[in-house]
């Protein structure tokens, strides 16, 4: 079904290590541009801290806006790593190998982006640490009934697990870089690879830790976005939020946007780093495309069910909300855009093999998915709050301010900036993982039969 990578180990090393050993020309400008956006966003943030949240477009009743939308969005993107590296690893999907690192690193940086978004959101960011379950001499333990206490715990656990996973998988590759550099760099990589010598015992432990981490991280796979969804679902007073389907709905939505983001990132990797297209093949995009069709359709089922459950009771406030969400400008326009971009354009596209194997088309379709998924969170949060109560006197609306837009841009710049820095110092293609896959494919002839040369982990 899939073409195998027709490279020897030296070629794989050369291709994967080239971004580290020789810097591409576009790298520094790209880093500076994203850094510029980060600085602008942080400046906007400090302006907001100085003047108060009045500089945003938030108001009563729309107390949550772009920041929370963005928080949920980045948590969603972060589900890519766990889907690709844990679930596909445990199900032994071979095609995952070249993209595991990219997915995990994307996870780490999007989690960091998500974790600092609440800082922007709260009224007194300098007090945010009070939600951590530690008694900061206040004599008050955080309120464990609040999803906002579980959020940092779950996301923090996920971040720690993903970072560990990235480091564990990096060790053999760092040792390779150590051996191919000289002087100070070699020393630094030597320290980072924790004395990796490639002994059988080290390989065994590395494999065990990898499998253990993928298995142990599975509960987090369910918990993180469930807890994020409870930020909304526990609120009985907001019609569009108070739904029992939110936890699975959010999780499958997160996988939809996360896996799409990995596909986007893959295409970018194939474009910008020379030789990567010899390791990342259209086959991998093809596989991801087929996975995405399933994920997207499951997600769409949940979307349909969410609306169906909500309208089933035919309560007037609920109907008023859905009317606003679906039929009133500008939400109607956003809603149509959301449906088209998150499902009705990309999924029919992925049905065709030619599309799944084409870089530009996969790039466009997966970007569209994430535009749609961002809009989905916006359409859940903002219209629901605008029509929060049966008291028509307090209905409102929301327009984001330039400050909010700059800060949201900052998180996107932050993730790109992080990925760029990572690509300079660490290989984005897992060398050992690909070689491991090659070893597993080695076959030896014993008499008339061909058997695998090694036994699977």
């Amino acid at each position, binding site marked *: 079904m899939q073409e195998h990578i027709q490279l020897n180990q030296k070629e794989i090393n050369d291709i994967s290590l080239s971004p580290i050993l020789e810097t591409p020309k576009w790298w520094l400008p790209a880093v500076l541009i994203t850094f510029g956006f980060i600085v602008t966003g942080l400046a906007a943030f400090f302006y907001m801290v100085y*003047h*108060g*949240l*009045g500089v945003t477009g*938030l*108001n*009563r*009743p729309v*107390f*949550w806006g772009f920041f929370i939308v963005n928080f949920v969005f980045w948590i969603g993107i972060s589900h890519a790593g766990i889907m690709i590296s844990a679930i596909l690893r445990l199900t032994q999907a071979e095609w995952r190998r070249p993209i595991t690192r990219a997915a995990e690193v994307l996870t780490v940086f999007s989690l960091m982006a998500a974790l600092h978004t*609440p800082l922007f*959101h*709260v*009224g*007194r960011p300098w*007090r*945010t640490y*009070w*939600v951590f379950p530690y008694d900061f001499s*206040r004599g*008050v333990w*955080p*309120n464990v*009934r*609040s*999803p*906002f*206490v579980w959020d940092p715990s779950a996301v923090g656990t996920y971040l720690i697990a993903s970072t560990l996973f990235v480091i564990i998988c990096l060790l053999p590759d760092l040792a390779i870089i150590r051996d191919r550099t000289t002087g100070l760099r070699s020393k630094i990589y030597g320290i980072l690879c924790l004395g990796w010598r490639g002994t059988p015992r080290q390989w065994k432990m590395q494999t065990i830790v990898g499998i253990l981490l993928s298995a142990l991280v599975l509960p987090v796979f369910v918990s993180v976005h469930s807890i994020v969804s409870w*930020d909304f679902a*526990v*609120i*009985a*007073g*907001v019609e569009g939020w108070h739904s029992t389907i939110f936890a699975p709905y959010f999780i499958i939505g997160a996988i939809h946007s996360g896996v799409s983001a990995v596909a986007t990132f893959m295409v970018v990797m194939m474009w910008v780093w020379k030789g990567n297209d010899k390791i990342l093949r259209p086959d991998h995009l093809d596989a991801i495309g087929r996975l995405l069709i399933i994920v997207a359709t499951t997600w769409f089922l949940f979307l349909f069910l969410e609306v169906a459950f909500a309208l089933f009771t035919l309560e007037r406030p609920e109907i008023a909300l859905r009317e606003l969400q679906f039929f009133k400008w500008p939400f109607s326009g956003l809603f149509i855009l959301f449906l088209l971009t998150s499902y009705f354009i990309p999924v029919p596209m992925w049905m065709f093999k030619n599309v799944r194997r084409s870089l530009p088309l996969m790039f466009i379709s997966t970007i569209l998915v994430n535009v749609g998924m961002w809009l989905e969170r916006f359409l859940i949060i903002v219209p629901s*709050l605008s029509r*929060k*109560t*049966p*008291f*028509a*006197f*307090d209905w*409102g609306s929301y327009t984001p301010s330039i400050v909010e837009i700059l800060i949201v841009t900052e998180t996107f710049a932050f993730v790109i900036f992080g990925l760029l820095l990572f690509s300079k110092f660490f290989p984005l293609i897992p060398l050992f993982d690909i070689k491991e896959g090659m070893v597993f494919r080695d076959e030896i002839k014993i008499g008339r039969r061909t058997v695998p040369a090694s036994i699977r982990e």
Partner: protein
Amino acid sequence: MANPSWGMVIDNDKCTGCNACVIACQSENNIPINEEDHFTQRRPIQWIRIERYWEGEFPNVKARFIPVLCQHCADAPCEPVCPVYATYHNDQGLNVQVYNRCIGTRFCANGCPYQVRHFNFWEPEWPDSLENQLNPDVTVRTRGIMEKCTFCVQRIQRTKRESEKNNTSIKDGDRQLNPACVNGCATDALVFGDFNNPESKVSKMKKKELGHGGHGDHSDHDGHEEHDEKRGYHLLEEYGTHPSVVYLKKVDYESKTVEKH
């Protein structure tokens, strides 16, 4: 003696929509002046507000008023969602807001179906002429935190302290005890008191109008008829918040139907 359970009865029939309660509340509780900007930005801070609805077509238009303030719900949706216990229920039936603990997640404001929680989007400012008007008993809130009606807890506490000092009991309907809005109401549409004291005016009104006293018993409420003598109801009681504020329906002699909520 049992702890008091403070509550209020609001007679919509008596409310004229004059906004005196709003002004009284602003001045008692150090609420910054709401200017036109605040309203166009939809960020006014009004611990009590008069919601005004128009009913009917011109020329038969009727203005309907509901004073809405924090309902001090027994099962308040704002309380469980606060990550830092900035809002909790105290032993006197009050839903209290601890300004120093608040980090401004605005989760409680989303939880509140009555929309009586207000966020300080800006640092509060007063014109120079009002600097000396600030009430020393009430904290001035900084930007970035939530605030809401406290039933003028400073007045309750002061009355309690003085009655302990003088060895007297708290008098029902004492103007020292009543929240500013109740004192400011020209038509006695707002009545404040202790629901745990069966002799208090609010308990008697609640018993007469809702058919029972005390918290948590709403069993015989659902069945009442439209033209029943009993006018009591809770605001948005379908959310199961068990509010401490009882509303009395407006008796509309002109139209045959009684306004429904």
